[in-house]
């Protein structure tokens, strides 16, 4: 377990860097989560993915897999890999404050 200092608060993360308590997520925290994953500032395209992931997870009750994101978010698979070069399958959900996706695709 690790912790992240953001906006004057201490936020607890699991061993893989995912939020322990998803309710703590805020847009400002997304920037801090991205930074903790070695990413630069979030672009509009990142936000398009994050917003889709959060809305989809709220509807479906689980984090979307990468193929689902590429099919439904309007951001292509190639772009997703450009936005999250260190692994879009995990990082999109991590920055969006969601648990690690269960889907293999």
């Amino acid at each position, binding site marked *: 377990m690790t912790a992240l200092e953001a906006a004057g608060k201490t936020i607890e993360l699991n061993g893989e860097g995912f939020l322990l308590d998803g309710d703590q997520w805020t847009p400002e925290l997304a920037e801090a989560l991205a930074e903790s994953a070695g990413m630069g500032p979030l672009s509009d395209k990142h936000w398009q993915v994050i917003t889709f992931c959060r809305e989809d997870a709220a509807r479906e009750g689980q984090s979307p897999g990468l193929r689902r994101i590429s099919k439904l978010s309007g951001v292509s698979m190639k772009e997703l890999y450009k936005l999250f070069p260190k692994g879009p*399958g995990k990082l999109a959900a991590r920055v969006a404050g969601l648990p690690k996706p269960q889907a*293999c695709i």
Partner: protein
Amino acid sequence: MNTATLTSPTADVTVAPAVPKPEPIAKIAIICSKGTLDMAYPGLILANAARMSGIDATLFFTFWGLDIISEETVDKLHVPTVGNPSMHIPTLVGGLPGMESLATTMMKKQMEKLDIPDVRELVEILDDSGAELYACRMAMDMFKRTEDDLLPQVKDIISAMDFYDKAAGAQILFI
């Protein structure tokens, strides 16, 4: 490494040095040597999962594995019903005409229901993900195939020795 001795208020406790945290896998190289539907998926899915996790992936298709990346065969991969104990049907029954098509259709239907992409789409996804796909030169010669027979996502036709060069630093998986 020495064992460290910690002194606690209650007792002297000897603690063995912590095992260093294993290094995460940075690269995987998968050899796909089988051309049946059930043996095509594991390699492709594992390579895709690697890329989704930020792990580099290189795939080397050899022998029957070439069917996975050949234009003429990619949409026609079959589930074997003969010599496949996991089918749980007698071999003689599995050999009856139409059994293999039936089993293949059933598996494809189930995959569609679960929204699992077909093999052609999975190869496209892998290409988009930055995974590198290579065909084995010797197998290509044996099966009399040329570059024109392969899917456009295949990067090159290479030798086994070239494969090892491409796989430098990778964990190698044979399927």
